[in-house]
């Protein structure tokens, strides 16, 4: 089970990293989302992967580690806020510069002339 879990985390990380290295904004946003899934899974597993445990007191089952869960829960929400911000930034860039390149180049104007 552990090996499988680690493999999945690794594959999702690799997919996310590859996409964040692309030159257009949208794939980068998708890549960041994928990467945040991987990071959340990774962080979550720091408390061990447990089956049939609980984080509710007095429910008669053994406890799972609640701390990574709490941390990941806020991470998920913050991750959403950041994804939203980045994607709107990408829209704004396209609106203002006419290009969805990550370097913010204007399509009609080579970078050298910016200086």
């Amino acid at each position, binding site marked *: *089970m*552990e090996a*499988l879990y680690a493999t*999945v*985390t*690794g594959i*999702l*990380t690799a*997919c996310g*990293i590859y*996409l*964040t*290295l*692309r*030159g*257009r*904004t*949208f*794939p980068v*946003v*998708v890549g960041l*989302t*994928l990467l945040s899934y991987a990071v*959340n899974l990774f962080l*979550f*597993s720091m*408390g*061990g*992967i*447990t*089956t*049939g445990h609980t*984080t*509710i*007191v*007095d429910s008669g089952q053994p*406890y*799972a*580690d*609640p*701390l990574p*869960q*709490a941390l*990941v*829960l*806020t991470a*998920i*929400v*913050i991750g959403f*806020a950041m*994804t*939203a*911000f980045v994607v*709107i930034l*990408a*829209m704004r860039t*396209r*609106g203002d510069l006419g290009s969805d390149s*990550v*370097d913010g180049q204007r399509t009609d104007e080579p970078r050298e002339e910016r200086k």
Partner: protein
Amino acid sequence: MTLLLIVLLPLVGSLVPIASARSGRTTCAWLTAILPAIALGIAAWYTPAVFGGQLPQVSLDWVPALGLDIAFRLDGLSLLFVYLVLGIGLLIILYARYYLSEKDSMSRFYAYLMLFMTAMLGIVTADNLLLMWFFWELTSLSSFLLIGYWSHLSEARKGARMALTVTGAGGLCLLAGILLMGHVVGSYSLTTVLEHRELIQQSSLYQPILLLFLLGAFTKSAQFPFQFWLPHAMAAPTPVSAYLHSATMVKAGVFLLARMYPVLSGTDEWFYIVTLTGLATLLYGAFFALIKQDLKGVLAFSTISHLGLITLLFGFNSKLAAVAGVFHIINHATFKASLFMAAGIVDHECGTRDIRKLNGLWRYMPYTTVLAAVASASMAGVPLLNGFLSKEMFLAQSLEAQMLGGLSWMIPALATLGSVLSVAYSLRFIHDVFFNGEPRDLPKTPHEPPRYMRLPIEILILLCIMVGILPGIMVEPILRAATAAVVPGQAPEIHLALWHGFNLPLMMSAIALSAGVLVYLLRNHIYRFHRQFRAVNARQSFEFSVQRVVRSAQWGLDRFENGSLQRYMFLLLLSAVIVAAFGLMDVPSMAGLKSLQPLDPVVVTGAGILCLAGLGTVMLHRRRLLSLLFLSVVGMFVSLTFARFSAPDLALTQLAVEVVTIILLMLALFFLPQKTPKESSGRRVSRDILLSMIFGGVIASLNYAVLTRPLQSISTYFIENSVPGGGGHNIVNVILVDFRGFDTLGEITVLGIAGIAIYKLLNRLRLFMPSSDMEGRPWSPDRYPVILSSVSQTLLPLALLVSVFIFLRGHNLPGGGFIAGLVAAVVIILVYMSRGVEWTQRRMSFNYQPIAVTGVAIAALTGLGSWVFNKPFLTSSFGHFDIPLIGDIELATAMMFDLGVYLTVVGSTLMILANLGKVTTPHRPSKEKQ
């Protein structure tokens, strides 16, 4: 506490001229002078106590963790400098009133001057090394403003920049020295440091500490080879030069030597470095003072020379020499300030400072001539004046120095040479300017200056004469007090008198005076000799090296920062993976000792789908919509993973966030190109694939290594205290709203800020609207699907109810503010989607920004509420209440906090999505329009 006022009053005083700028020039000057005058009065009030051997101190905590206190002391040395800084400062205020022209902003000048005065007072009275350094840098900054006061002149700007660069760099060295010293002693308190001479000198760090302190002192005091900034600082208005280069700025360096004398001096290193630097500076400055044709240039180099003399005295490692050094600090301050002021009068009344043009001025300004002549005579060391006394002491001490062994005779010889040159340039200052024929092509006809412009010089000259004739009464008490602070232990016997009998120093003085006259008479030979050398313009070479540094820094920067995000990402990720990989290499084996859990088919299938969906997202990333669909599958299965591994809260959150994220990305995709063009080269693609595979491999190994090792968690505390401490059974929720509530407060604040930022980003956005989808088909004219809209309307109240339910039970069962807020947001978005923004807005006419802000405010106020009960921020309390019909209900303040979380999540999410949706609406094709 009164002690604080000495520094504080001038600081407040820097605002006075600004406030009184409109009240006329004279009033402005008078008002400015009031506060420093009071400070001087306070210093005078302390004087008897200090002379009596007391040490007034005051100390307030500032940053105790760093050892930084607002601590001041007033020992004899501080008192001496306080008198110099405030006394001469007041004279400068008076002088500047008449020196500055109508065009110059007087209030700005006085404000800078007062700021500078504050900084100087801070240096000399600070009882904490870090605080002293703070004021030290403040003098560099405020002198920058003063030197560059005439900012329209390129010379002034460059001179100011040069002074700032040199003294600022020296200041950084000093800071490093102070940090090392604090490390050795274990305290930055000056009082403590001064008690640990042995500790510092025996430490292996003594040499670096000494070097760094000396670098600080030498740059400030313009010692060779850092002397070049001082002549260029002469571009400042003359009152500034008179202040900075007589009593203050450059004296800060020698003050530091005196201040640190008890702990740093006495070693061979100290002797060689300080003595040789002082000697070189003394001769260098004296020679160039003889050559310069600019009146202020002569004074600048003579200042350098005299500073060298003082440094040399401190280098001698003899108590009496240190006394002579302190004495010369006083004398130099008085005669040099008056000389600068006299030079300023000449410049002011004649319109030039060129010595070749200035001749025979005594006819036009006889009174000024007399004053300048007396000051010059003091500088030359003529008997009956104060300069003579300290010069005698200096010559006597130079005879005592034995450290150079067989070559020790060179020190008195060179000291005499320095005195000879000093006599020569003093003579030149008087004879060339005020006598020696008639003036040539002066821009103005010279005449005596206004009465009060002369007054400061008269006061200083009076002091010079009084000290020269009656040294025992005038300076002995303060010198004794100052010496007690500089020379530790048994104070040397100070006996100041005019006449010590015929002895060797007197002989040397006589030689210096007569040879000085001779050198002056032969000056044309020296000029001719000097003319063979190519003139070196320090400013040009300085500017050149500054520009070279800037260029090479730019070059280096351009290598890294080329504007390509792809490159930055690559470098960032590469370094991250290298760091992580190194960490892993230290682990002997990847697999730990923990026994593995068995696989089950459901998990394997789920993992397979998850991986395929992830890979699909990447493979199809050029076709963005498809890629997005795969991404949603990934999110879905991540949520299932959380559910499978005992984290229902996470699963619920992930599910809700997934929905919102995908909606958001789809809306955004509408405005972005539907396809990604193929533009990466094959090399780049394979490079990226390689990096991401390595990265994935490292992460997977790391994850496996962690998972197979026994777990030590701090969570036992949370599990045990969840019910008794937080009043909730759902530990995850209790951690969020109680144990780590401050974290959560920060996170919802970030969420709110992100929402507001997005709202602003969408404001007046110019958009590129596609009229068809990526296959070229026009968008469906069907405006709002009927089934969806009726279902969503029915669902709305139910879902909101569910949201409230999840919220309420969150403290004890899976749920809570985050999840409930997301559920509410999702269902409202569904209504937006099915009925359109206009329809929804008509029925739910409220803004989401206030909701999000209210949420953060409620959470923060709940936290603050615990202060009312004298508990730390965000302490929660709870109790059980029996409500009819509903039964036993447990209410905790954490619930209020969670309500804040709930509102923030709803508000921010809707602020993001509804506003984005609003942007799309006007562009949607519709049946009505067709």
